[in-house]
């Protein structure tokens, strides 16, 4: 037998090496392809199970909460401009108060970027487009559940648009996802956007339940496994039929379509008790006493209905920061701006209401929110503390820690509250007053203020009803992000002819300011840089 030893050896070794390589190669190729990230979910793996639906549903709400709370935007945009607050020493806040909205400060640049609302628009739109396919792939996810979820997405999207229209006027209206296609959409007229909002809200209102996880007639039973009896439950967390009607009331009021505002506010006021299970009396939705509103006397009972504390049925539309689940934060709350020592370890608050403004706003000596007892000279501390000092502290809202009124730990848990029962009642008063239904308007106004220690519009009063309603709004909703929008609605109703603002020393009436676009905010340069189809609001050019 001839045996070429050398040849054979090399061949063998080569074969071995090759085989080894191929084996390892294939194994490794597989490893290369199978290594999946554990920190994200691929689009292609999404929208398959009920968990995807829940996670994305919560994601939409989280984005909405972020949009409202980021950089304290809800309050900076709602409470500062031409408002009651003054800045202690922050030049950027002072610029907003004085209406220099194009000043060159990082905070202003950040809050004038509308991207945060469009994230809500995009996420809700994705949800509307994609979630129906889960119904097919996961039979735990029922059609009814999906319908309600989509209705929430539509309501949230409409809310985002409404909120943007109030701030920027004309904004691009996008109703499809354009996934990966970064179109450069131009602005759409505010009228069109608002009518889109209304249509969407009306559609959502047909589907949404009053409450989740209970005996609601529309959606009875557990919702994503949670019922009203479990902890956590859904009270105050999600958009309800009441939320949507409240929003409809506001959209129509903004359109000055008070006829419809009347209808929607009536619906809210007639049905709000359905927000909780029949028989629930502690966590229910009700008109709040001053202690319940301000938590100046902290009891279990006052906390259960305080509309700022965590998630509560009293938040007709609000976005909670749940302390117990690690959502307390420093930024994103009015308290960061208004509180200082002794509530939190800080020398001075960033904004405050000056004393003479307080005296002008709270005129009634019986007002439980703030008033000075003429006999003793003592004042009520429900809204303001340290009234005796140069800068009284606005301490109406102070959700600092689970149990205490004060804390060294300056993180806050107050919700971004859009509306509560008193607010809707006052809106109803406004609507009725505009339509000349004085009796109903007075009734609503007095109802809203019934627990504030006095009657704002007693029988036989000859004061201007509209003025009184807005004065009450100013008192009741101070620090809740309403003042600027109230001023606009008020001036639209009253068609005032005095100086509303000045531009470069030129006085402008409200009508002039409105037509010049001054009632809207400028858009951040970042928005314009990224999309040339967006032009700066003329007033701010």
């Amino acid at each position, binding site marked *: 037998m001839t045996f070429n030893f050398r040849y054979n050896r090399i061949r063998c070794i080569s074969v071995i090496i090759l085989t080894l*390589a191929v084996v*390892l190669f294939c194994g490794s190729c597989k490893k290369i392809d199978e290594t999946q990230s554990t920190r994200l979910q691929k689009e292609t793996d999404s929208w398959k199970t009920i968990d995807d639906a829940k996670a994305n549903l919560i994601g939409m709400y989280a984005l909405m909460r972020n949009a409202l709370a980021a950089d304290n935007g809800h309050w900076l945009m709602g409470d500062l401009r031409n408002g009651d607050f003054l800045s202690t020493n922050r030049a950027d806040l002072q610029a907003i108060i004085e209406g220099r909205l194009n000043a060159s400060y990082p905070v202003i640049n950040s809050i004038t970027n509308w991207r945060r609302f469009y994230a809500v628009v995009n996420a809700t739109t994705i949800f509307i487009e994609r979630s129906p396919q889960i119904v097919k792939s996961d039979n735990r996810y029922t059609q009814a559940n999906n319908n309600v979820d989509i209705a929430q997405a539509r309501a949230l999207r409409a809310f985002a648009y409404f909120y943007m229209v109030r701030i920027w006027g004309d904004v691009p209206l996008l109703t499809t996802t354009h996934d990966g296609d*970064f179109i450069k959409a131009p602005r759409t007229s505010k009228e069109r956007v608002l009518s889109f909002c209304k249509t969407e809200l009306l559609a959502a209102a047909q589907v949404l339940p009053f409450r989740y996880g209970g005996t609601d007639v529309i959606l009875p039973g557990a919702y994503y496994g949670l019922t009203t009896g479990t902890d956590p439950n859904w009270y105050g967390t999600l958009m309800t039929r009441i939320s949507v009607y409240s929003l409809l009331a506001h959209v129509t009021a903004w359109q000055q379509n008070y006829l419809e505002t009347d209808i929607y506010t009536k619906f809210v006021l007639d049905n709000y008790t359905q927000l909780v299970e029949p028989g629930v009396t502690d966590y229910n939705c009700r008109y709040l006493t001053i202690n319940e509103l301000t938590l100046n006397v902290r009891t279990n009972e006052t906390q259960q209905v305080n509309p700022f504390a965590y998630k509560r049925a009293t938040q007709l539309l609000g976005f909670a920061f749940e*302390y117990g689940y*690690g959502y307390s934060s420093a930024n994103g709350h009015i308290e960061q701006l208004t509180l200082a020592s002794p509530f939190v370890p*800080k020398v001075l608050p960033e904004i405050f209401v000056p004393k003479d403004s307080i005296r002008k706003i709270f005129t009634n000596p019986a007002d439980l929110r703030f008033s000075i007892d003429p006999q003793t000279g003592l004042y009520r501390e429900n809204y303001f503390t340290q009234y005796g000092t140069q800068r009284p502290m606005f301490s109406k809202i102070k959700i600092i820690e689970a149990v205490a009124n004060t804390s060294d730990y300056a993180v806050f848990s107050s919700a971004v509250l859009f509306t509560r029962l008193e607010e809707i009642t006052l809106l109803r008063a406004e609507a009725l007053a505009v339509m000349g239904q004085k009796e109903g308007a007075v009734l609503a106004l007095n109802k809203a203020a019934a627990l504030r220690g006095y009657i704002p519009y007693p029988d036989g009063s000859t004061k201007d009803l509209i003025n009184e309603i807005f004065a009450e709004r100013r008192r009741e909703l101070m620090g809740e992000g309403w003042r600027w929008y109230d001023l606009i609605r008020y001036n639209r109703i009253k068609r005032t002819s005095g100086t509303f603002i000045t531009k470069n020393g030129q006085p402008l009436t409200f009508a002039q300011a409105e037509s010049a676009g001054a009632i809207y905010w400028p858009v951040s340069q970042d928005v314009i840089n990224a999309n040339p189809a967006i032009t700066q609001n003329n007033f701010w050019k």
Partner: protein
Amino acid sequence: MVKVSTSVIYVLFLSVFGIKAASANLVNKHLLVESRLFQQQDTIKKVSKPDTIGEMMKTLVRFNKLRDTLDIFRSKNVPNLSLQQMVKGNLAGVYVQETSGEPGSEQSMIVQGPSGLIFAKKDMYSLQPAVYLNGVPLAQDHPFAYDVQKYDYTRIGPANNLLSQINIDNVSSVVVIKDPFELAKLGPNAANGAIYITTKNAKSGSREISLNSYYGYALQPGVSPTNGAFENNFRKPFYQKYATTANYNTYASYLRDSTNLDYFGKSNWDDRYYQTSPSYTVNLGITGGSERANFRFYGSATQDAGNADKTGLSRYNLSFGLNMAPFKWLTVSSSINAIRLDRDRNRSLRDRFAETQYIPDTSNPLSPNIDNYSSYLAIVDGATDLNRTTGINGNFILSAKFKRLTLTTSLLGDYTEGIRDVFLPSTLLAGISYVSNYFGYNQRLILDNRASYEFDLGSKFHKLKADLGQSFQSDTYKYNYTRGYNGPNDFIKIIQVNGNANSGFDYLNAYGDFYVFRFLDKQRSRLFSFYASGSYKYKNLISVDAILRRDGSSNGQPDSRWLFAPSFSASWSLKHQFLGSSDFIDALDLSAGWGRTMRPFMDDRFAAGPQYTTVNGWTDEPTLPGYGSFIGVARPYTSGYVGYNIPLPVSDRTNITLSSSMLKGRLTAAVTVYNRDDKRQVINLPVAQELGYTTEYKSGLDVNNQGVEFLVTAVPVQSKAGLGWQTGLNLSYNQNRVNALPNGLQELIYQNNKLQVGASAGSYWLYTNQGIYASDAEIPVNPQTGQKMTFNGIALKAGDPRWEDVNQDFRIDQNDKTLVGDRLPKIIGGWSNTLSYKRFDLNFNIFFALGQKAINQYDAARYDFINRESANNITSVREITAWQSFDAARQYPIYNPFSSVVPYREDQDLFLENASYAKLRSVTLGYDFTAMLKNKAKIKRAYLYVSGTNLLTVTSFSGVDPELVNYNGMYDGANITIPKTFVLGFKLDL
């Protein structure tokens, strides 16, 4: 028996290191066959020497005999702590900047210019070269931890410089690899270049012991402390000129009362802040063994101190190397390094608040008085601050040689673990206590197989060698991080939850003793490579090399995970071709190479395409993962949309080198010209905001680096009387350029910077400051509209800066910003000299960086005190070091600090300064005692030296030190200065 033992070795290491059982079995089957064959190798007689560093080093030495290696012999005498410090100024084309003098803190190296963007600290991670320690590419910290951080000053965790584990007394060579072909051999890890370190290896021969030590001090710098009176004087002109009553009402409260001794008393904080502190090291190396089995052991302990704030680093190294040749044809070698780094970090307020992500009221800063400061430090000393890195890396290499065929299997591993435990008592954080625990690791495992064959071409003129190889790399980065706030008291320093599951639904909840936030994250990536290379040599004249490789990365997108990358190189000996008879020239070589390397993504997000992640909060609150009581997911709206069509980036390099050696090696010189294109890089491109995303990750950023490197070493004096002078100079010029942007864009505004095709990626984008408007009348008026000039819509007033209206539209806005200056230097280099006379020798090192600019953010903040102090954010923090004055400080115009145009904004050239510098890095004077001791003991060498480092800086920069500029070009004055250190040391070889 042989069969069994060989396969046992294989099985052992394969199973230990977690190769999947299935493939291991298969491997073993083949190995059994293989080992049977091995038995037949009795004809091989010669013992092959262990070759632990691989063929690559040999080729390197051949190509780059004189170039780009660190002069270990001289460097040993300088008390450098980290690899970056060792190579600083000593390797051509490697730019090292120590942004802080804090020992053991993170440092960066950039080889031949930045391959990408340098706008954020995070960016630096992807520019770092790979560092190989005995062939193991060390896994560095992963920047993904920045995802949960509000501020990017320091990464969470220990943030130790992992390259401070390199111990020069145990190193035999440090080489920077820039040649395209050599880099291609190293593969995708080395896309940014590589630093290849070989430690001293086990070797046969008689037992050798080396003992080295030094002891010395980092000196306390001299500063001029100030108090409130100085600060008041500084502010006075602003208030006199511009302030209204309202402005006076908000005057900084701590400066109001000039009788307050806390702020207006004696300012002498510096005695407690700065200190002279000891640095020392001691290490021992032992080598010994026979030809068939030998070992090396090395152990070292080092203490390195900073000059301020009690900073320091304790380092312990242990390494062990072993070579064995159980059979004449088989060698087994292994080396293991273990390290431990304990770092005492700075105690600055900024770093503390950035870490806690919680900023208490900042309106009353620290008092400059030593009594107050001491009582504050007493509290600080009560805090817990454990900062530890432990790591182990090593290799296990089996090499079998059968005549012309060599088979090598290497298992390389690196595991580094970081621990950081912090507890701050409530007295430090305005009434709340804080605790955080971090555990994280970087793990890398590589299995590398290679066969190389030397062909017999039947002629001694032709040599041909071929390699076939394959390597599999698996990386894992992980951390667990917990922060807790507001504990019950200052004695409970750990987070405890009510762990009893029966006690209610909230037994693991965030509240309880501490308000707790938890973060877990993990990234895995895998890299697989398969390559073939050939090397042909004709006489001494020409050599040609080529490598073809195919690499796959799990971080690539499914349709583009694999990349084919060829590289070539050729070398031509001009000496042997033309100057064979020349006595003057010993060697003259011309070589050229071209190579392509895949540049794998560090992040695993791109592989997934469109995706959903947990919702985060917003910039100020980045860690709110959901809503209500639940976690929510959404598209990555704030971090950036990931789509498809993102191929793996590549790096293409071309090198041409002319090197020569003359006068019997007394003069060597080399010139290299390089061109590098880093193509298809991904950039987070701003997109139309109306789809909810801030940015989209888009492929298409091409960055080009071109440069020239010049290297010369000479021995001008070498007299018989014992006088000698050796000198070495390296000089590199780099030109960085953006070659292309995604979507064919010509320019792009990116995170307050502008990228423009043709301009350097490190350019600043600034307004041009031309003085001041002294009165309203000076402000230009647009003749067409009658409107005064505006700044972003705000009418300018007297006291505002005169910014240049570049486009002359009477509106100063971002269109008037221009690209100026560069963050990185154009020219870097080092000059080293050794003068020797008999047994004395004197060495000094100079290094320089020229052409870079820096923004003096420290001054900007000082002048913008109105906005800074009222902001109550991280920029309003006033450190103890702010209580000092600087002689070189620049004067700026007195603008109206209350103006809403923010006159002292950072994005103008007012604060742009030339940050070029030259430094006398080290001076060493040594004396060799060997001769004196020779008769008394078996001492091979005894050497005593004194060494001083960081002795002198020449610069026009107005800050403390132009090196302390942060990576993004901002000089914030917050970093600890680089100390002057003097040490006395000895080296003893037995």
